[in-house]
């Protein structure tokens, strides 16, 4: 790892007030207004949740999808530190930042959806906690991982505030934190799949399988790389920086490898279980299944040759499609393919969507503010692009 010399991270700089940040601010205010009603008048006042569908997009989008999008950090960290691919090191900090935000917001987002949120600590408190429940694993992993990730990211903060001693101490424990920071999100992402396994026949056969934990985990890692491609392209376009194509092109190959494993597992499982026939019925579930599958398959076509992998536009679209596919997988498994009995239905209300949009706006705004003010993205030297290589 130390064999690779990279440009040190530095703040991007520039004005904080612009069209993007103001738009995000407005969306966040709208979400806060809805949340104010939610916390005074209750869940029923703003959501379309009911006894049949006690979770809606606040859980599926803000927490389940939000945390999957936040897998960039651990996917890249795993690549760099565990598979010792030091060349990707410049990608770690920005990916970790996005993960930090994604996971922290996912943790906070759970509170919005809990009817009796003031009891949230019961799930981890000895005496209340039930270590045999899947939800316990989900809760324990997400809360521990958020803590570990803040520690992993703390060097950027210590550098900003000049706390050299703290920086050094964290640096010594970093190998351990990185190990934990890989294990915990893997446990968390797979346990989100286990959560549905225990629902049994209430989940449509296209998604209900004992392989669901593995499917969720591998798709989350794949999404992690897709998010890095997506963000790098977006940051390059937004900040008018040079794209780190020398990193993204090989990373896309890693992503395609994971994607292939995912698709083999996904379809292998469907065939072994004999559930593929459900995909050819004229139902909403089969339509959504093919939409999901198309989003997963498209990157294989879009990025099939090395030349195509050098085209940032294709990387961006492929990354976005993979993120969409991962989102659809989760929406389908948690909501579209979830049938709790005759008569129950759910579609998110406008206020619910406003909160979800606001949550993503917080992530975007936070990313912009932090990359402009804190040393996260690699220093850009206009005179000699990609100097160290």
């Amino acid at each position, binding site marked *: 790892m130390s064999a690779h010399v990279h440009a040190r991270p530095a703040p991007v700089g520039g004005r904080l007030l612009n069209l993007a940040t103001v738009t995000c601010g407005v969306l966040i205010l709208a979400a806060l207004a809805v949340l104010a009603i939610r916390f005074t008048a209750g869940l029923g006042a703003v959501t*379309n*949740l*009911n*006894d*049949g*569908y006690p979770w809606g997009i606040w859980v599926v989008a803000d927490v389940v999808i939000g945390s999957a999008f936040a897998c960039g950090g651990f996917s890249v960290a795993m690549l760099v530190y565990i598979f010792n691919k030091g060349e990707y090191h410049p990608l770690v900090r920005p990916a970790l930042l996005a993960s930090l935000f994604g996971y922290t917001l996912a943790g906070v987002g759970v509170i919005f959806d809990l009817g009796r949120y003031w009891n949230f600590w019961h799930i981890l408190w000895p005496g209340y906690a039930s270590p045999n429940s899947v939800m316990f694993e989900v809760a324990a992993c997400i809360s521990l991982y958020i803590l570990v990730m803040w520690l992993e990211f703390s060097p950027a903060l210590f550098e900003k505030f000049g706390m050299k001693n703290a920086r050094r101490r964290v640096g010594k424990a970093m190998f351990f934190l990185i190990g934990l920071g890989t294990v915990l999100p893997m446990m968390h992402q797979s346990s989100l799949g286990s959560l549905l396994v225990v629902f049994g026949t209430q989940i449509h056969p296209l998604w209900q399988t004992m392989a669901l934990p593995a499917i969720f985990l591998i798709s989350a890692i794949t999404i992690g790389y897709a998010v890095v491609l997506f963000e790098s*392209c*977006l940051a*390059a*376009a937004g900040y008018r920086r040079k*794209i780190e194509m*020398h990193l993204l092109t090989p990373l896309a190959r890693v992503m395609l490898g994971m994607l292939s494993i995912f698709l083999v597992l996904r379809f292998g499982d469907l065939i072994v279980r004999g559930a593929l026939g459900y995909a050819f019925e004229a139902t909403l579930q089969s339509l959504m299944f093919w939409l999901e599958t198309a989003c997963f398959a498209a990157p294989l076509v879009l990025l099939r040759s090395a030349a195509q992998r*050098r*085209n*940032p*536009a294709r990387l*961006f*679209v492929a990354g*976005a499609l993979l993120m969409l596919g991962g989102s659809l997988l989760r929406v389908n498994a948690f909501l579209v393919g979830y049938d709790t009995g005759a*008569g*129950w*239905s*759910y*579609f*998110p*209300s*406008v206020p619910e*969507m*406003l909160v979800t*949009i606001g949550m993503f706006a917080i992530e975007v705004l936070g990313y912009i503010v932090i990359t402009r003010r804190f040393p996260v993205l690699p220093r850009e030297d206009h005179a000699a*692009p*990609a100097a160290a290589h």
Partner: protein
Amino acid sequence: MGSRQFSESGEPMAAPGSVESRLEMSRRSFLQFCATLATTLGLPKGAEAAVEKAMAAAERPSVIWLHFQECTGCTESMLRAEHPTIEKLILDVISLDYHETLFAAAGHQVEAARKAAMEKHKGKYLLVVEGAIPTKDGGIYCKVGNQTAIDLTRECAADAAAVIAIGSCASWGGMPSTIPSIAGADSSPTGSSGVAEVLGKPVVNIPGCPPNPYNFLATVVHFLTFGTLPELDAQGRPRFAYSRLVHENCERRAHFDAGRFALRFGDEGHRKGYCLYKLGCKGPETYANCPTALFGDAGAGTWPVGCGHPCIGCTEQGVGFTKPIHTLARVKNIEPPAVYPTIGEKQGQGVSLGSAAVLAAVVGAAAGAGAMVARNLGKAHEAEETPSNDPAKE
């Protein structure tokens, strides 16, 4: 031995000098009485024999019964006991040496009887106090034989084997101690207090307004049989009678659990015998054995709730005479939910025009923005590729 005597009911009369003849009851009735008391006390099987032995053998204990701020309701209640009747009790089971209501004697004569009994049975007599004791202004608001209630209580308690406070007034002050509706008054005008408070030591309390006579009798018989007082709770009440909420054994409990309540006196629910909780029944916060012991030996239903009146919580300090009858009790075991779930739950609504429009707008905006970013990235890429021959690449 030829001529056996028979009672009016035809049962054989007992031999002269035996406990049966003393109590003027048949052997069978006597044993039934002993068994009843043993059961009331919650004693194990076989204890009725001990009770019987104690009753038959023991010298009748001397009892001194004082009256202070009270209505004599406790005595009236005792007078209506039938197992045994009060005359059997005071003439044969105990030796009632001083009782203002029941004594034929009066004045100095009766006070002399009290002092003689206290002298004779020093350290062995039972002191029973009925009524609250006024403590304000040196206790001048209640005097008997020119002695204040405080003095009398202390004097009689000094050499008593045990002190029993009968009724809520003697237990903690009861009705006389409640704050009257006098402007500016912050406590009872006469400072009515319970016996334990005046003596500064715990006594056996048999609260109730009036208390069930058998709770008192059983306590006395326990003392006779075992020489000790029954186990008491934190308020000095015998556990055998006061360890369960009225609510726990209430015959209307099933209506409470099913949510069937009388809402007004005389309404349909009230006539059907529904739960009186919403009429202010204090059963859920009052410890007493009323629903199981009943009153007046008249059979089922002969207790306040059985007659359709909410329990007023007379055995519970801070509830009886203090909380208005109509106010809701604080349920000490399980609180009923304030709101019950509706029967027809909302099953959710499908897509609304607004939500579909917002979702479509978001998807459209994201797709549009994505396409723009992709196009710009593509253009930049083309611009880099076309001048080609860039040796710096890779």
